[in-house]
């Protein structure tokens, strides 16, 4: 509960915006682009740092929910400014089986384009995006950095998309 951080939260790209494309490394020899997932929903989970307590809980919850996300054919991508080797160690240690992308060089560039960078800390915000198969933002949320946003918002957004509800 870090109330102090509430006021400094960024405003995310609103629903209806085109999601900026990016290509980021997911392992030392592989990269992932947003356009790789055209035709299916993508969940972007920007988070501050590998191994920090809140991030670990949040990502463990998402790992637990992968089967739910898969029901919507949605791909989950975690993004932070940590390097790929750090991501590998984190994923192995915490049993995470979805891509963690490294917004490392130039540092935080993709986070910035998604209004999800905390200049004062040099890390990503705790920001969530749900993007549709055409690359349009359908839902976005920035959580106070010390508060795990849970997954309800993501699931509701995926359901709304499936039902074709206008945001």
């Amino acid at each position: 509960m870090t109330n102090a951080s509430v006021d400094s939260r960024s405003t995310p790209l609103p629903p209806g915006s085109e999601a900026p494309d990016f290509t980021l490394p997911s392992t030392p020899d592989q990269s992932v682009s947003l356009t790789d997932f055209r035709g299916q929903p993508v969940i972007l989970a920007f988070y501050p740092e590998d191994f920090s307590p809140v991030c670990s809980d949040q990502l463990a919850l998402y790992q637990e929910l992968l089967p739910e996300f898969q029901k919507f054919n949605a791909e989950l991508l975690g993004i932070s400014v940590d390097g790929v080797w750090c991501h590998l160690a984190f994923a192995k240690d915490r049993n995470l089986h979805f891509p963690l992308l490294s917004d490392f060089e130039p540092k935080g560039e993709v986070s910035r384009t998604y209004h999800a960078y905390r200049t004062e800390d040099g890390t990503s915000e705790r920001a969530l995006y749900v993007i549709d198969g055409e690359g349009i933002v359908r839902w976005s949320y920035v959580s106070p950095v010390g508060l795990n946003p849970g997954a309800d918002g993501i699931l509701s957004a995926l359901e709304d998309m499936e039902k074709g509800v206008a945001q």
Partner: protein
Amino acid sequence: MSRTQWGATLTMPVTEDRDHIQGPADAPVTLLEYGDYECPYCGAAYPIIKEVQARMGERLRFVFRNFPITTSHPHAEQAAEAAEGAAQQGRFWEMHDVLYENQRRLGESDLRSYAETLGLDVEQFDKELAEHVHAARVREDFMSGVRSGVNGTPGFYINGARHDDSYDVATLLAALERAAA
């Protein structure tokens, strides 16, 4: 635009038929926990709940639902199913307490020995665990928590509203008394 996560509320109401409940149905305040038997924070909350229950007596109704995070806690799912197996034989709370008092011993043989100690029909208990008879119930609990905004364990709700404050005895008791007033 952005759906707020503040003021999260319980989406699956407490029902006497389905839920595991201690305390009277007409108690002025209901404390509901989404918990994981292998989570150390839930273990730390366990005696706190006991204390709060002792202090509030019949004015408090306590409800427990499963929220196993198997990604971090490899034994949590089986422990949750074991508690549901005990519930099938009318001994949920006894098993719930044993599990929280033995959080580091949640292996298969441990669970069986707790079932024996509690005098359960062990053959039936084993069979249900092996066939994951209670997995659907555990998952239903879990998803009801996700949809209610549970973001970690223990997740507490007081009269259906998520308790976002700390859960030491004094803070929790104060929040419960406020809700009861």
